[in-house]
């Protein structure tokens, strides 16, 4: 018979051992000698915290009542970890990259660093885990009692208090000694690993004992199973699948599981070994459950608590040593769960509830927050641990240890599982938003409370029993265990179904309908695309390489010489030689300031933190950089626009200048020409009038000289008239006297005017075609014709000069051609002839000033037509065209 004192001593000794192990592990880790902590074996063993007293004791109880159904609790996690590539891998990667400290932290960080989501998850976790802690306390207490004589009455709540207090002490000592940025607790992890071995060993020991020493080997066990009340595998399909799903979900979502799997993960590769080693562990733990249950059912009295078969069987067979070992196994499993759960929950509570409240109140009071709030955090964690354990104890004593252990466990699982939709969305769906997550969580939580927690807690109480019977507000469709008429499902499965359905639906719909903040979107990209981002998960460590990197970058930005001077100066100040000083925080700040002068403060900060901080640039930094860049871009756009304008203006000025220069040149040429033309006749007039004045001339000579003077004067007058005419035409102030007349009549007039100086040129006309009537300035038009005909007379050098005048009408144009039979005008001169003062031959012979064709062109242009030289005829040919609108159809 084992006395309670012995038990107490053994447990105390065991706890002391754990303390020592944890302490030693912490010391080794602090000195950097923690190679074993990264080993996959330790990692796999730490995952065993999934197997609590519920596994150790409750599994057998579960099996004794419902057969093989218990195994679903271990099949779920097996499938999850065998499929590590799908979910766990991403979870671990994100956890390491974002330095996630808890599951609430993960969700809060993903949904835009939202305190709301973090707080909801924390509360959910606390509410869900408290019954589970109570469960552990209950199982330890029961196991203590199992060693006492059957006459013991009532629960000895002292045991529970001692256990709770002892666990709080352990957790505080090893979980909150210092604040590790990565939230690694090496001592705790090592202790958990030891406990994993202890519980596995003891359960297998009991199993071996039962199978080979109590029963007669496996075949005997098989026949016992077939003869027992659990011989038939009549597990309901919905329960089989539902419980497997629940266990799988809980494996991911339980705060303690998240903590050991993600937060305490030292190396992603450890998942590979865990993927087969952990299922092996689970299988080993489950292997002897049914044999023990069956043998217990056979051998122990019918009213024995099946939850304790693992203890009571060895005890009843007198194997006290084994019973002690078994007790230790159960104790291990209970304590490991409580330690890790309390730690995880305390982290969540302090980070997501206490610290935000504290910071908000501190800033509201105007108290400046010193950079070191570590003491506050640690203190809040310790308080949280104590509170957590007290809550668990309270729950245990209030429910009085009623109901089978397994029932509470599953309810707790379902509560924690409400995190799943938001979690999966966080990892895989860019569209998941804070609003959706919060709404989904609250919906799931509320439904869980309504369909599972309340019925379990107060299903028989006065205020809830009617609701259970008749539904909320008397509506039968709202009965907690048969919502919307689904009565055929087991209450647990029913609850799982409805909570998951409602949670997921609300999450998806609310996310799709809401807009995420910019921070949320950036975080969602970082999470969902975690495998595409290159993560610098460097540890803190300043190396020479860093100083060199910074020098390289600085050179690029502020120039080689200046950067080197800066660095050399700093090195000298530090008493070092060469170009690479130590990267002290002060110097880093200086460099950053220098860089900010060139690229802007935000960019400089982002670049420096990239190299020095060794972390991915934070989202806030990026936003600041983007702001600055946008400003710079806008400024440079404005500059560009201005310089374009300036260029255009310069071009226009240049063109105008060219035109003015050309015009000025033209004007000079014109003026020189005019003065020449005017001077020539004036010279003759002066000369001859001088001769006349001198007298002593014969009558004949007097007459002759007077004639010459007269001619020259006339020539001068003609020239001046022409000039005036041209000027008037060019200035555009000419008024046209429009009359209607036939071209024939106009030509008659022109020829008559020219005929006075006829030198015997034959003019051929076709009278018929000259019937075309035009509405134009007749005088001016005849002036043009006179000019062309007299030109022909003057310049036609044929022996028998002939002039052909022909008219035609085509395409809205009337063409009048003047073609002589002379030698025409050469190609090179065809364009020049219409310019002012251009004469192709001897001036005197021409008699004119060379303005004739220029005047013609001006006139014809004013009348809306064209005049041009017509090449390719048998002599000189000019074509005048007039638009037909001037023509009125001949009657």
């Amino acid at each position: 018979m084992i006395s309670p004192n012995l038990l107490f001593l053994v447990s105390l000794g065991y706890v002391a051992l754990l303390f020592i192990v944890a302490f030693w592990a912490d010391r080794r880790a602090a000195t950097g000698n923690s190679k074993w902590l990264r080993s996959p074996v330790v990692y796999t063993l730490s995952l065993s915290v999934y197997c609590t007293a519920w596994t150790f004791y409750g599994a057998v109880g579960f099996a004794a009542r419902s057969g093989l159904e218990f195994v679903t609790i271990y099949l779920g996690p097996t499938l999850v970890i065998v499929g590590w590539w799908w979910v766990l891998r991403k979870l671990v990667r994100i956890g390491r990259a974002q330095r996630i400290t808890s599951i609430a932290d993960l969700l809060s960080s993903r949904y835009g660093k939202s305190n709301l989501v973090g707080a909801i998850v924390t509360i959910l976790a606390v509410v869900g885990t408290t019954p589970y802690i109570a469960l552990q306390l209950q199982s330890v207490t029961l196991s203590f009692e199992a060693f006492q004589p059957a006459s013991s009455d009532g629960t000895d709540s002292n045991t529970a208090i001692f256990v709770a207090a002892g666990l709080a002490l352990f957790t505080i000592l090893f979980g909150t000694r210092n604040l590790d940025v990565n939230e690694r607790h090496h001592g705790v992890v090592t202790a958990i690993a030891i406990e994993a071995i202890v519980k596995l060993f003891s359960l297998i020991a009991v199993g071996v004992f039962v199978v080979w020493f109590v029963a007669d080997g496996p075949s005997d066990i098989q026949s016992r199973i077939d003869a027992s009340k659990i011989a038939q595998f009549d597990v309901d399909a919905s329960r089989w699948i539902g419980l497997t799903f629940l266990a799988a979900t809980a494996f991911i979502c339980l705060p303690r599981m998240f903590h050991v799997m993600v937060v305490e993960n030292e190396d992603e590769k450890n998942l590979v070994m865990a993927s087969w080693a952990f299922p092996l562990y689970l299988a080993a733990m489950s292997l002897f459950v049914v044999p023990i249950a069956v043998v217990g059912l056979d051998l122990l009295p019918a009213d024995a608590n099946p939850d304790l078969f693992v203890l009571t069987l060895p005890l009843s067979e007198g194997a006290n040593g084994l019973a002690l070992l078994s007790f230790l196994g159960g104790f291990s499993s209970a304590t490991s769960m409580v330690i890790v759960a309390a730690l995880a929950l305390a982290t969540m509570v302090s980070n997501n509830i206490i610290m935000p409240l504290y910071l908000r109140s501190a800033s509201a009071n105007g108290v400046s927050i010193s950079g070191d709030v570590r003491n506050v955090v640690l203190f809040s964690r310790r308080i949280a641990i104590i509170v957590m354990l007290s809550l668990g104890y309270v729950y245990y004593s209030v429910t009085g240890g009623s109901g089978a252990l397994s029932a509470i466990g599953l309810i707790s699982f379902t509560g924690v599982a409400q995190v799943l939709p938001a979690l999966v969305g966080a990892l895989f769906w860019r569209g998941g938003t804070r609003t959706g997550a919060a709404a989904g969580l609250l919906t799931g939580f509320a439904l869980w409370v309504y369909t599972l927690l309340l019925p379990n807690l107060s299903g028989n109480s006065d205020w809830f029993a009617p609701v259970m019977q008749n539904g909320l507000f008397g509506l039968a469709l709202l009965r907690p265990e048969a919502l919307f008429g689904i009565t055929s499902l087991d209450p647990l499965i029913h609850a799982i179904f409805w909570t998951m359905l409602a949670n997921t639906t609300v999450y998806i719909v609310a996310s799709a309908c809401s807009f995420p903040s910019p921070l949320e979107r950036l975080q969602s990209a970082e999470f969902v695309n975690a495998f595409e981002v290159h993560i610098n998960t460097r540890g803190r460590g300043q190396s020479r390489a860093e100083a060199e990197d910074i020098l390289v970058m600085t050179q690029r930005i502020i120039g080689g010489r200046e950067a080197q001077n800066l660095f050399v100066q700093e090195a000298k100040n530090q008493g070092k030689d060469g170009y690479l000083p130590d990267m002290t925080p002060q110097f880093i700040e200086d460099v950053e300031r220098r860089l900010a002068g060139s690229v802007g403060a935000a960019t400089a900060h982002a670049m420096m933190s990239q190299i020095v901080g060794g972390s991915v640039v934070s989202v806030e930094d990026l936003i600041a950089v983007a702001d600055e860049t946008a400003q710079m871009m806008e400024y440079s756009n404005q500059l560009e626009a201005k310089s374009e304008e300036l260029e255009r203006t310069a071009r226009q000025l240049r063109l105008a200048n060219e035109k003015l220069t050309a015009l000025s040149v033209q004007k000079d040429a014109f003026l020189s020409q005019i003065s020449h033309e005017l001077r020539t006749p004036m010279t003759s007039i002066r000369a001859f009038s001088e001769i006349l004045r001198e007298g002593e001339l014969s009558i004949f000579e007097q007459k002759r000289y007077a004639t010459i003077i007269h001619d020259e004067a006339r020539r001068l007058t003609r020239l001046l008239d022409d000039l005036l005419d041209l000027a008037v035409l060019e200035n555009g102030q000419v008024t046209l006297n429009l009359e209607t007349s036939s071209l024939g009549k106009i030509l008659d007039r022109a020829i008559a005017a020219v005929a006075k100086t006829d030198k015997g040129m034959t003019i051929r006309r076709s009278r018929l075609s000259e019937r075309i009537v035009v509405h134009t300035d007749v005088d001016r038009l005849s002036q043009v014709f006179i000019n062309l005909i007299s030109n022909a007379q003057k310049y036609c050098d044929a022996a028998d000069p002939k002039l052909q005048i022909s008219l035609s009408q085509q395409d809205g144009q009337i063409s009048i051609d003047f073609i002589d039979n002379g030698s025409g005008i050469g190609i090179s001169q065809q364009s020049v002839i219409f310019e002012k003062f251009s004469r192709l031959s001897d001036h005197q012979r021409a008699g004119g000033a060379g303005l004739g064709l220029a005047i013609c062109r001006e006139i014809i242009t004013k009348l809306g037509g064209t005049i041009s030289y017509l090449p390719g005829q048998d002599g000189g040919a000019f074509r005048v065209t007039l638009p037909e609108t001037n023509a009125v159809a001949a009657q």
Partner: protein
Amino acid sequence: MASKPQKLFLERQTYRRRRLGDLIKLLPVFGTLLFVIPVLWGSEDSPAKTSSVGLYLFAVWGGLVVALLVLSSLRRSSDAQSGPHPMPPVPAEDEQAASLAKGNAQ
């Protein structure tokens, strides 16, 4: 026809490694299906026996463990022989720091 030339298949190792990865990724699917099957056994008159179902479950369980063990070690050994692989785990922190420092200092 003369003896067929050996089929040309380049990069057998990478291909093999990827197929191993595929198998590992699909194991949980197999596992789920296999674990759900017991529900389909038995009928009203002759329900399945706990002992047989139990044996079946543990057999599948062991099979999954062994399969995963074998596949993972096969994959790891093929990693050791050739270069980077499609499921790269993040290297331990100190190695990565050194490689990044090298990369940054170019």
